[in-house]
């Protein structure tokens, strides 16, 4: 089923607007299909919305999340530099004015280029995922397992003063009220979470719709590209313009070589001077260096072995979801908490041994240094 250029653009009437609507719902800050249509004809009123869309798409998620978005001019500059760094080939975009008033067709082409080259939509959807809060990083689970403070206990023998009972009743009432307030807070937060999940669902459904209909969109984009005036679209993919000759490049290469030579010249005497200063250690120093390198290599190897032997989890620092599972269920992906506990305990004991060894070594070294310089007085830090 090849691509066919047809007036009207779609396999049936309405397919194109639906496809574009699905696309814009999936994108963050997606403009209406009308904007897309106007952009095909390079209408200026469509330009600001498309600049803003590209800004949202190209800027890092942290920046996009801040309350105050920058002015249109700043957005334009950022979009241009981001596209340039990603290798966008059409130079016309870089020449568009910074007030964001023109170039809607070029922006549309840029958007299509971004969509075509990689999983842009998946990437954007992953960025704005709703976090459900049932994940914890592996190394923090220990903090949760620690028990709270013990509840104060009372001996029940002997006559009890009624005032004490009233006191306890009052405490219970306060805790009850606290529980109710916490429940209300929980409900409010769950409500917010549900709202966000609903909006995310809408976006995901739109993304699925888009996937089903995107062919129509690409056919239409062909017509957009076709409607660009010829003189403004050289669309050269060659990084070098042969007309300007090898002269420029040669100049640049020569300059680089010269710079390299200069740097070498500056570095050599400095390195010699440093070595002369540290040179008092001479062969001792290089021997010490080798010894340290060997020691470090040994330690690393030991740690590596310990890690492997301990049955390290495949990705230790990725956040993992906590899932309660029936004790009888044997198979299934992921780690079991008991295995992890065991592995971490083994690791802990190995690290403790290593720590002990290092401390002994430090002590020996300190003793040696203290013995080597009899005139030196050692002042210890104040004890805890």
């Amino acid at each position, binding site marked *: 089923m090849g691509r066919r250029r047809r007036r009207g653009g779609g396999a049936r009437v309405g397919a194109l607007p639906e496809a574009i609507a699905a696309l814009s719902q999936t994108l963050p800050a997606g403009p209406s299909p009308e904007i897309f249509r106007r952009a095909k004809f390079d209408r200026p009123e469509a330009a600001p919305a498309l600049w803003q869309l590209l800004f949202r798409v190209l800027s890092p998620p942290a920046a996009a999340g801040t*309350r105050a978005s920058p002015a249109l001019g700043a957005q334009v500059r950022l979009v241009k530099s981001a596209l340039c760094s990603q290798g966008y080939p059409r130079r016309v975009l870089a020449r568009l004015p910074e007030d964001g008033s023109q170039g809607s067709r070029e922006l549309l082409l840029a958007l299509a280029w971004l969509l075509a080259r990689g999983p842009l939509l998946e990437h954007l959807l992953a960025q704005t995922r709703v976090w459900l809060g049932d994940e914890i990083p592996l190394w923090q689970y220990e903090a949760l397992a620690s028990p*709270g*403070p013990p509840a*104060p206990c*009372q001996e029940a023998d002997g006559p009890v*003063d009624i*005032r*004490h009972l*009233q*006191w*306890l*009743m*009052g*405490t219970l*009432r*306060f*805790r009850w*009220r*606290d529980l*109710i*307030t*916490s429940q*209300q*807070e929980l409900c*409010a*937060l769950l409500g917010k979470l549900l709202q966000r999940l609903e909006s995310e669902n809408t976006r995901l459904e739109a993304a699925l719709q888009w996937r089903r209909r995107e062919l129509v969109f690409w056919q239409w984009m062909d017509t957009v590209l076709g409607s660009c005036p010829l003189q403004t679209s050289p669309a050269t993919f060659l990084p070098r313009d042969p007309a300007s000759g090898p002269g420029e490049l040669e100049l640049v290469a020569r300059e680089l070589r010269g710079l390299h030579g200069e740097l070498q010249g500056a570095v050599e005497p400095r390195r010699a001077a440093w070595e002369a200063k540290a040179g008092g250690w001479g062969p001792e120093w290089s021997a010490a260096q080798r010894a340290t390198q060997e020691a470090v290599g040994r330690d690393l190897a030991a740690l590596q072995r310990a890690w492997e032997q301990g049955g390290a989890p495949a990705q230790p620092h990725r956040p993992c979801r906590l899932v309660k599972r029936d004790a009888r269920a044997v198979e299934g992906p992921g780690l079991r908490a008991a295995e992890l506990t065991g592995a971490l305990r083994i690791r802990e004991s190995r690290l403790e041994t290593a720590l002990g060894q290092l401390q002994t070594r430090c002590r020996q070294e300190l003793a040696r240094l203290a013995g080597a310089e009899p005139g030196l007085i050692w002042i210890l830090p104040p004890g805890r």
Partner: protein
Amino acid sequence: MSVVTVQLGQCGNQIGFEVFDALYTDSHCPQGLCSKRENEAYQASCKERFFSEEENGVPIARAILVDMEPKVTSQTLSKAAQSGRWKYGQHSCFCQKQGSGNNWAYGYSVHGPRHEESIMNLIQKEVEKCDSLSGFFIIMSMAGGTGSGLGAFVTQNLQDQYSNSLKMNHIIWPYRTGEVIVQNYNSILTLSHLYRSSDALLVHENDALHKICAKLMNIKQISFSDINQVLAHQLGSVFQPTYSVEGSCHYRRNPLGDLMENLVPHPEFKMLGIRNIPQMSENSLAYSTFTWAGLLKYLRQMLISNSKMEEGIDWHVQPPLSRLPTLGKASLNRELQFNTSIANLVILRGKDVHSADLGGFKDPALYTSWLKPINAFNVWKTQRAFRKYEKSAALVSNSQFLLKPLDTIVGKAWNMFASKAYIHQYTKFGLEEEDFLDSFTLLEQVVASYCNL
């Protein structure tokens, strides 16, 4: 969890401003003596409780301003807005053009019902801004006209409408030689009504604050602003964030709830007092250093001897050796001077706070017989310093310290009531002699309960 503050009357509004200002300046104090991250957590915690965020980043106090005259509220609003650091909400103020002439009954029976809907609507809007509501902090005077009567009415309404939320009333105990003739009537009516609808009554005495200003801060011409600043300092040192459990790294989420659970579960014992140490003018602060041992020793003696400040403490007062009934007049006198506690909460802020030894406060002799120190005594800590004090300690205490002043006021009010003086001013607006009698009965019961500890 957030706290919504209701500032009532001239007194409540002036104090409220100083409190928010103290909280804000402390949370943005650069000399916190802790890491940057911890400072940010402290700021965030303080902000969540007392301020909400606006578009341009200026924090808005979670507060309602209520007064029957426009002068003080408009001054308060403009003072806050001018500072540029924080402000009150644009629509958080309710005021009228008429006063209430220090008449409790007018505030309770006329102003209250008339403006009930508007005031409760304002409160509702403020509550809706909170992600989670811990409770209400109501600042009012005990003996004035608007603050006291209207405050009692509003607290009752809060009890009906937000029965699960906590309510703490911060009340100003009037000068013993106050100017208002009917202040004792107002006081007993306020106290009795609040005792029924509020969860805790946090009391500041004007006389005590005045002495602190004179003796400790060395202020010559003491204005209400000075007094309110001392007060705000004490409140700030209680309500700023502290760690939730020993060794935890999270700030306590619900200080109001924790405080109440530790100190006022018993319905007959709701009166709380604050002591703070050290308290001095900022000029002297730079030249002073303290140890925890010294601070806590003074604080403990302030508690035992019912002293309001760290000067002029009576060091002869000691806990009784046994709890048996006293024999002989000498020991009786000393017994009477000793301030028995029901429960105490000590809050420590500053350097090396983990090394502070609180054994002196865990002595069972300090407490009443039916509550052991393990239940009666609690301590909150944080190493983040409060304002510019390298070490500071606050004590919130449920003890006999208000027993004598309360007894005095009830006695004086009773004498006036016995001769029916000025009663018609109250009965004119719907209050009856029955209400007075009920108030006397309730307060006599409170006095007796505190006496028999």
